[in-house]
């Protein structure tokens, strides 16, 4: 007996307006002619043009993407291994410490993670640059990946792997041919999560980057500290657009896949 009352409609409308209006306003004002971001002076794409001329931003964007690709890939490999160890490796010495080290970074304030890594890099005399940011991002993103992957592994039927071993696979083959294809969706979403975490990160990158490598969030942060700027609005719009297109595409693909599966199952049921 679900009653979809006016209260529910109002709550949802106001709630989603609150969540989405600020971003919509941001997008609209990125097409504002005026330098004054609060006054509408007509439609223009000139800030996008200026953004594309701004070498510092383009460089930072390039660094950010490089860092995100490397760190998310590394984090996915390490995180999947860690998840496998947590779920499948059974007991070993230091297991408690291991699971502690997986879960602690999830709740650790970013300022502390950043600070501690910086102190490490200085301690061992590693020059700060792209490499240090990649190391830092990999470390905290791998924990998120391992949580995502292990939740899939837990619900994964162990006997499938045993069947593969029984049929003559080596453990590595069993993982590659049976386990990996089944947990692949979780691994992929883990990679995407690691990628966006890296793209998004300001605090840890600020601690671990050097003068040679500035990421986009650092650049944006130092620009907006001084106030609202139309160029940043344009940049934000581009980033929002990429994310929206990406998420919609991903959901369409997964919807199609599930529809196909449904059709196949129906066809199979009909014989």
């Amino acid at each position, binding site marked *: 007996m*679900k009653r979809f009352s006016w209260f529910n409609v109002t709550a949802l409308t106001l709630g989603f307006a609150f969540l989405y209006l600020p971003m919509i306003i941001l997008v609209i004002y990125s097409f504002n002619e005026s330098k004054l971001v*609060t006054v509408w002076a007509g439609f223009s794409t000139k800030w996008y043009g200026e953004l594309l001329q701004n070498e510092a931003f383009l460089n930072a964007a390039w660094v950010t993407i490089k860092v995100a690709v490397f760190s998310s890939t590394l984090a996915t490999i390490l995180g999947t291994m860690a998840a496998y160890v947590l779920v499948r490796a059974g007991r070993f010495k230091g297991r408690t410490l291991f699971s502690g080290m997986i879960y602690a970074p999830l709740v650790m304030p970013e300022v502390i993670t950043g600070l501690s890594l910086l102190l490490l890099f200085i301690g061992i005399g590693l020059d700060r640059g792209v490499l240090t940011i990649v190391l830092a991002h990999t470390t905290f993103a791998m924990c998120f990946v*391992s949580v995502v992957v292990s939740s899939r592994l837990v619900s994964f039927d162990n006997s499938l792997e045993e069947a593969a071993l029984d049929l003559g696979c080596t453990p590595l083959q069993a993982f590659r041919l049976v386990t990996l294809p089944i947990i692949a969706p979780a691994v992929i979403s883990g990679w995407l999560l690691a990628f966006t975490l890296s793209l998004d990160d300001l605090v840890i990158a600020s601690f671990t980057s050097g003068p040679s490598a500035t990421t986009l969030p650092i650049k944006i942060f130092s620009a907006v500290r001084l106030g609202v700027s139309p160029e940043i609005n344009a940049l*934000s719009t581009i980033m929002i657009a990429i994310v929206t297109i990406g998420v919609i595409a991903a959901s369409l693909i997964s919807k199609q896949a599930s529809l196909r599966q449904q059709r196949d199952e129906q066809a199979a049921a009909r014989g």
Partner: protein
Amino acid sequence: MRRAILILTPYLWLFALFLIPFLIVLKISLSDAALAIPPYAPQLDLAGGWSAIKDFFAGLDFENFEFLTTDDLYWKAYLSSFKIALISTALALLIGYPIAYSMARAAPEWRPTLLMLVILPFWTSFLIRVYAWMGILSNEGLLNQFLLWTGLIAEPLTILNTNYAVYIGIVYTYLPFMILPIYSALEKMDDSLLEAAEDLGCSRTSAFWLITIPLSKTGITAGCFLVFIPTLGEFVIPSLLGGSQTLMIGKVLWEEFFNNRDWPVASAVAIILLLILIIPIILFQRNEQKQREMEG
């Protein structure tokens, strides 16, 4: 052998890049500031042998922590972080609960879409979402323009660079963390429980307070911790939306480190922040465990 490689690779990685750095912070928090590179003393010199190690430990003390108690900036910052996190959590609950409730009451075919709409902001940059409010909340911003236009106010309100702006920013960015666990608790709830309550003489309102609220308690608790814990160490929101009088510990730590270059004090600030966080984190995990037990 393969098993050893499988375990050791992530293990050593985390050991080197999570545990060791953390121990370094702990150690530096016990050191003294020095005009050197790196700017603290004593330094561990393994080449000096056993006596050097003894000297090293002799040089460690709790001076920085004592300093934190003497300068009221720090405990005020901790208190103010705590207060801001608490108020924001309460606001997020007040706003998030009706949304989660309405989502759970929506027709089943609508729910995946609504869920997706709540999760979507997660994928957009945190920084951009905070930044979006700067243009809205400023003195000439859209909110003030709107309020002036409606005639509710005669003078523009100062919201940006105050704690109010910080509350708005925190609620806005962390709202999905509040909505999702409450939604998942409410969605699991059997509708016949409410019918049974009505059947036994409850009005709709009292059935809500006697049944719906207690049954979504684990979701409410989880949501509150998920907002409260990260808010306590928040840096971006207070530095972009807050003003000079907005004291939050994440911001203090940042400034101590980058502006004052006092690494030992910054480390001590970090250690205390962690100690404060341990309690809510333990409570949160207990809540999660309770929930698992109830389902299992």
